[in-house]
């Protein structure tokens, strides 16, 4: 008997129904993209990277994107995405609306992806990295930041992949604000 019928599953269910009625260490920073490979940097907790005071001179991401390579600047923006366990994240200009509120039918489960404002997001986004001596983003576990956090960070503008300006962070960052979101929104690990 070889049953080759896709409706078999339904029959099956119908039949069934009928029958049964780190120790923390100080971060090593300052690597450059061309830095030679070195042993992996030990992991650091994000709490050790939190700056005690706000960077009051921080400028919006859009303003920093108009800056020059090599310029030292502090920027502020909303965290858009990150690499788990590494000091690498994207900040979006605060003026770009995220998708936390998309009207009455507010069902967006990943408002940090800016899927409702992709064009504006792409124009106002900047990569931030805090590199170890191996040239790779520092191991930071846990990062202590999550998507949509308003973060201020200081560093040097440099050209990243594709020639776009990015920020090589100097030390840590300051968590300026963590917005309240619907309980149904689950942030990535």
């Amino acid at each position, binding site marked *: 008997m070889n049953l*080759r019928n896709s409706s078999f*599953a339904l029959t099956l269910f119908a039949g069934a129904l009928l029958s049964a009625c780190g120790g923390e260490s100080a971060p090593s920073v300052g690597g450059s993209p061309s830095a030679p490979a070195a042993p992996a940097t030990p992991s650091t907790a994000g709490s050790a990277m939190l700056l005690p005071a706000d960077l009051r001179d921080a400028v919006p991401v859009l303003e920093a994107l108009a800056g020059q390579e090599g310029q030292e600047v502090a920027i502020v923006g909303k965290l858009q995405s990150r690499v788990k366990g590494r000091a690498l994240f994207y900040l979006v200009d605060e003026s770009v609306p995220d998708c936390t509120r998309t009207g009455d039918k507010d069902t967006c489960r990943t408002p940090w992806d800016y899927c409702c404002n992709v064009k504006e997001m792409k124009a106002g986004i900047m990569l931030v990295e805090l590199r170890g001596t191996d040239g790779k983003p520092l191991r930071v576990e846990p990062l202590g930041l999550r998507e949509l956090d308003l973060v201020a960070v200081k560093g040097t503008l440099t050209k990243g992949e594709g020639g776009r300006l990015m920020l090589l962070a100097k030390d840590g960052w300051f968590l300026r604000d963590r917005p309240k979101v619907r309980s149904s929104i689950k942030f990535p690990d």
Partner: protein
Amino acid sequence: MLPLFYALRNLGRRGIRTLLTLVGMALITVLVILTDGFARGLAKTAATSAAPDVIVLVGAEQEFDLIRSFIPEGNARAAAATLPGVKEVDGRRAISLELHVATRKGDQVGTLRGVEPEAFLVHERVTLIEGVEPAGERELLAGRLAESRIGLPAGALAVGRTVELEGLPWKVVGRFAAPGTVLEAELWGRLRDVMTATRRVDVSAVAARMDSPESMEEVAIWAARNRLAYEIAAKTEVELYAGLSETLAPITLLARLMALLVLAGGVLALTNTMFASVLARTREMGTLRAVGYGPLAVGVSLLEESLLLAAIGGLTGYLVAGLFGEVPLKFPMGAFYLDLSVPVRLTGLGAALVAGLLGGLIPALRAIRMPLVDALGDKL
């Protein structure tokens, strides 16, 4: 204790009722096996579809839906050329550009995947079981479950047959297996042919097999740095298929609930049968106790009867389920084979025995508590 033969003889004394109960138990066992096999087959497909060492670069704006994902071909080729940590097999990098298309056949939808020859190095579980890989124009490789998935009769995608997809004829030149994965329900053609047939100038993804677990993390950093340049995001196959497991979990849960309900039906049926047996033999049980057998011996004998019924019915169901062969079933994202392996069938047999035990328990207790005088007077 009463000899086991006594229980066996009693089953024979009420032939029709015993036969009906046996048939019922066999059916219940088959149903438990089928529902459990459905749940296990589905769960296995959802859980084992992803390869732990495969990275998929998807369009930055559609990170979890390969059908809707798009990456300009130029960006995909540049990303593929620079992606670090890709495994090399016989001097070839295990990386392939892919185009995933939801192709219609009447009211059915299947998955047509355009691939490059290196795709076979990436998707290691794909094994050619008949014919050859597509090499000529619009040649097609069909997964073992592709017919079931797209609603075609068995043999419609046999090697040598021609099938119309995306308004063009495609010749099936080979068949492949990819056990326990959703790939097995797909149709594979050459990337360029699928792009031409669907008038696409972009691809859905770049799939790559990594050479080490460290490379997986390396790629995450590489992809994040190149995200804006190539408009891509890197996902592990495990992340991509996690959504599949989540979607299918309620269905598998429902199937398991069904199996429990079926089992409950079996318990009730056996309880009913054994109660009838107690009522019909009240005086006989009284006599047994009068000649020296204790109430426990009589109760245990009833339990033996119930277990014998369940065991014979269960064994019949176990054997019947073994005759089913390969049963393909489809679900929205793919297809799978019903799991009718020995462990699943043994679960069915075990369920029948549990039903026998539970079903015989209450009547046996009733027999044990029966006052001797009342039993002899047939007053129950």
